[in-house]
């Protein structure tokens, strides 16, 4: 196996006195797709937010593409421009058009020209199947469309790794599929992905590994078939029975 693109070893994090992540060890290879699941409050969001330092860990090592997240702002800059993130609440910039949302970072971070950035943005908007919405504002789009814009916005930075934090949880059921389809396509194109989601169909279809977290720990990890058909841990079994029952 080549060097992992993400390496987390013995990582711990506290919010004040609350021990939210405990002894996390995880390695992700280039092109690998990881699905993270677990009950609400188990630390899934916190874990992936540590990977681009939206949250800071206190103990242990996190390396992304060989660059250590140790508080150096130069390292952080390089990591953030290589790691894209998609949020549950989309977090599009409401005062900017779809196109401006997508070109902002390429222009100000990657020093692209407006023309280049717009060409790139249109290309990615095409890829998430909303090429005709470029001049609209986020408030004029449906939730599913907004989340696809958010994906395009992240892709415009040409990231090597994409992080998704429950990207479909805020969507009406009929819009979930259009977002998942885009994500599946992205996975097929070889993107390295870490995805917090409870969409078990998606996990079966694209995940190389499924990780189950509870109370700040990685309780179990396995290939999706084995994970779903033969969970080892009691907590995993209980969680799966709850999730799969509806």
């Amino acid at each position, binding site marked *: 196996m080549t060097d992992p693109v993400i390496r987390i070893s013995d990582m711990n994090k506290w919010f004040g006195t609350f021990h939210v992540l405990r002894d996390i060890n995880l390695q992700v290879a280039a092109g690998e797709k990881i699905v993270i699941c677990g009950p609400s409050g188990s630390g899934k969001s916190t874990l992936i937010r540590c990977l681009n330092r939206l949250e800071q860990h206190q103990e242990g090592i996190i390396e992304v593409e060989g660059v250590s997240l140790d508080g150096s702002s130069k390292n952080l800059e390089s990591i953030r421009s290589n790691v894209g993130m998609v*949020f549950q609440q989309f977090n599009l910039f409401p005062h900017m058009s779809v196109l401006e949302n997508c070109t902002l970072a390429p222009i100000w971070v990657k*020093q692209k020209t407006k023309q280049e950035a717009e060409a790139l943005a249109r290309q990615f908007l095409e890829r998430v199947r909303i090429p005709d919405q470029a001049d609209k504002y986020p408030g*004029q789009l449906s939730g599913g469309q907004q989340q696809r814009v958010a994906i395009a916005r992240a892709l415009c930075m040409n990231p090597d790794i994409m992080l998704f934090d429950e990207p479909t949880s805020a969507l009406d059921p009929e819009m979930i599929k259009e977002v998942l389809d885009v994500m599946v396509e992205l996975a097929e194109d070889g993107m390295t992905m870490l995805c917090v989601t409870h969409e078990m169909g998606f996990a079966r279809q694209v995940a190389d590994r499924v990780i189950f977290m509870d109370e700040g720990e990685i309780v179990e990890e396995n290939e999706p078939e084995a994970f779903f058909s033969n969970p080892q841990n009691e907590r995993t079994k209980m969680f799966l029975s709850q999730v799969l029952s509806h």
Partner: protein
Amino acid sequence: MQVLVLAAVLGAMVWLVGNVQSNLERQNINSGFGFLSERAGFGINQTLIAYTEDDSFGRVVVVGLLNTLLVSGLGIFFATLLGFSLGVARLSRNWLISKIAMVYIEIFRNVPLLLQIMFWYFGVLRNLPSPRQALSVGDAMFMSNRGIVLPWLEAGAGAMWYGVALLGLAAGFFWLRRRTLKAKLTTGHSTRFWRPLLVLALALFGAAALMAGVPFALDVPQLKGFNFRGGLTVIPEFVALLLALSLYTAAFIAEIVRAGINSVNKGQREAAAALGLPERVALRLVVLPQALRVIIPPLTSQYLNLTKNSSLAVAIAYPDIVSVLAGTTLSQVGQALEIIFVTMMIYLSLSLLTSWAMNRYNQRMAFVGNNT
């Protein structure tokens, strides 16, 4: 909307004044606005336009209005500058900076403005030493109980060319700024901004010097007898009022700015950070534009408050519109109704004009669509 209200109020007032006037006329009481062209006969210690005792009451109105506009305009400028800085400082992650801002805000917004005006005037500025013992800054600027005296440029013939050069420089500034932004968007890189601006400034003022020589003489104030001669004297009433209005209003603006920035969803900063945008770019392009939507309406009412509060000038006899018109003029000519109406109309027009301008600005900031 404001225009309509203004028209309606004007109409009502004209009708009311006319009505009252005819009543008074029937009773043979002196009334009307004839006094405006009469000789005023009193001096004013700060005049932005030429004025002597022999000028008319009409000119008194203009002098007073300009004094109100001066102290309000500068007050709004400084209060905005200080208020935004304090508002951002209040949210600083640095404990000390944030606490200092908090203490400032709590002190200045909780002491009545009138007391603050009196504090600066009687407590500080009037307590400065007499001109003979004036505090001096480099023997060019002096602070005494008669006010602050600054060196001033005496302009002679041909100074106009310098004015033209200054206008040219301002135009150049905006043109260069647009060019820089355009270059950023078309080539991806920022072009030089300050250096061409400096070259332009040198060229423009050089040309002005060629046209007109140097028609300026530096007028440094000097102590002659009991007071200063020359230079520009800023009266202590103005300094006290400006200080009090700016410092007081800044505390309220700081709270408005803080609330505005806090109202922007935390996810917005996170999304900007996740895209790799530096914090300052995120603040300027993502957070502030959204915060301004929330900030502008209450900010407008702070501007209106400041302008109206400037009428507390009466307490320390700063010659604003209320002092000279509803004060001195009223006591001399006695036409209370007309004078109070004129004064009220002036404030009303100022307020409506300010609201109108700020509303225009706010409309430009409105979002399209209704989602967050």
